[in-house]
């Protein structure tokens, strides 16, 4: 059974998170109320997944992100899912710049959609990504005069969903189109973004990174 560590300062919410993480099939190895406790728990239990609140004591600013970056360096195999009160693309960019897989960044209120949250937990633990649609929307605001401008509205939608970490089947379900249509859109996106030749999965990651404005 895969193991998880949860860092969240609100006791009430932490109890709920423990339940959902267990529902997703993880064993909750430890719970922490601040960044220090989280780092100690990760060192001690070496979990597969850490669910981290961005705003924690003592400063209530970005303690969670800094702790996550430190875990990325010391234990790169630990998947990280950050929960934030509000979206800040710089946090997401910092995380993705460190490593591109096994990362999630969701608005805190998404935990209420239990099924989707469980899916995101599993996806991140499997090495995928889970980005909040709002992060993605916020990143689009920034882009101008770059290859992304060449994408059609539908292609941008597809790329956003790719960035959120969804599979082709997931994207097709979300947009209510066939999977082959999604594949066609993705090919068109990869062509328009002038990505270097590489295997399909890697090019997909590169497209997402370009979309997010980090790396590549």
């Amino acid at each position, binding site marked *: 059974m895969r193991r998880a560590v949860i860092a969240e300062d609100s006791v009430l919410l932490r109890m*709920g998170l423990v339940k959902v993480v267990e*529902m997703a099939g993880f064993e909750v190895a430890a719970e922490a109320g601040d960044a220090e406790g989280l780092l100690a728990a990760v060192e001690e239990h070496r979990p597969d997944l850490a669910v981290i609140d961005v705003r924690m004591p003592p400063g209530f*600013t970005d303690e969670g992100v800094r702790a996550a970056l430190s875990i990325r360096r010391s234990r790169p195999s630990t998947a990280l899912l950050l929960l934030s009160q509000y979206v*800040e*693309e710089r946090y997401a960019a910092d995380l993705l710049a460190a490593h591109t897989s096994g990362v999630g960044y969701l608005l805190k209120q998404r*935990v209420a959609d239990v099924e989707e949250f*469980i899916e995101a937990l599993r996806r991140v633990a499997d090495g995928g990504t889970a980005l909040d649609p709002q992060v993605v929307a*916020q990143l689009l*605001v920034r882009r101008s005069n770059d290859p992304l401008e060449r994408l059609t509205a539908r292609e941008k939608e597809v790329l956003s969903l790719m960035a959120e970490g969804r599979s082709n089947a997931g994207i097709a379900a979300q947009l209510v189109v066939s999977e082959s249509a999604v594949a066609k859109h993705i090919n068109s996106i990869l062509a328009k973004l002038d990505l270097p030749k590489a295997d399909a999965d890697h090019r997909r990651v590169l497209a997402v990174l370009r979309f997010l404005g980090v790396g590549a």
Partner: protein
Amino acid sequence: MRTTGSWQTAETGAYGEGMKIRTRLRRALTRLARDASFLALGAPLHLLVVSLLSVVVGLLWGVIGGADDSAPIVLGIVVVVTVFCVPALTVAQSWRFRRLLGIDIPRPGWRRPLRQFAYHSLAGTLFGTLEAVVVALIPVGLAVSLTTVWVYAIPWEWRIKHSGYSTQAAYLSVAGLLVLAAVPPLAAALVRLESQVVPTLLGRSREEDLARRVEDLTESRAGAVDAADAERRRIERDLHDGAQQRLVSLALNLGIAKATLLDLPPEARGVIEAAHREAKEAIEELSSLVRGLHPAVLDELGLDAALSGLAARAPLPVRLRADLPRRPPPAIEAVAYFVVSEALTNVAKHAREATRADVTVTRLGGILRVVIADDGLGGADPGKGSGLTGLAQRVRSVDGTFRMSSPVGGPTMMSVDLPCQN
């Protein structure tokens, strides 16, 4: 003081005549004592400069005449003392007015030295002389009115030799009493004259008063703006860390119930699902309320980050260009954020057929310029709609300027300049 006197009379009128006369007498004596001490204190203060000046003139005479070798040195000392006396005397005068008459003369300090000097040498001479005369009338009047008494202290041989003077002593006493009787009204008149003239001559001019007032108002308004910002921050933190966490936890628990309690009767499931939906909507509403107040991201990461959040949530595509090498002061950031937030809400609500909006934030020297443009059909009127009025008010509260151009047919452009010296 004069006004309190009049209602005291009305109040004591209910008591007997005797009481009335006694209180009146006591009041008259108190006032006389006050006026007399005011004038007695004023005379030396007013006459000091003119006496120093006469010493200066005398010494100058000596220097020109070459009478004394030490004259130039003494002259220098006296001139220096005179110069330093001027602000000190102004302070002393304002103390005298405040202490004895309750009139506040704002101290000019070292400002307007020529005017102060002119007051102490010219007006001071006039007032000082009048004060000295009125004050001197008291001992003179007393001495003269008591002629019939002290005349008996003179050796009787002399009195007999000049017997005619005995009757004249009576006349003198009457004259002395008349002089004494004239002292209170004269003193009161002089005090009134001084209290009306001196504050204008010695105090700050109207311009200076206005300048000071503008300074005070600017300061107090900045304080009010800061206090309101701090309050918004506090409310934001409280809502974030309190109500919102609880709501998220509630929604999470309802979500867990919805996902796990699969064998419930359909009605019960319906209730849980409705509650779950409600809780999620409440979270959304609360977040948008908090964002409208003062988002935490604004404090932590600045205007650029906060604005990109706003732009991302806007219901139409927004292109944001923010060029901010340095962070503006917090109050200005808050206003700029509010401007963009309101403007985008306005565009979404009212701009007809707007398909996109552009937000540009640039720093031009000491000015932060925020421009919001949309490609709608225009015709927006800043006079109508509380959104734009509130926006303009908040911009004015930090001395910013608000311009709007929205010709019928579009496009609409709103430009806000906010001062940011830091």
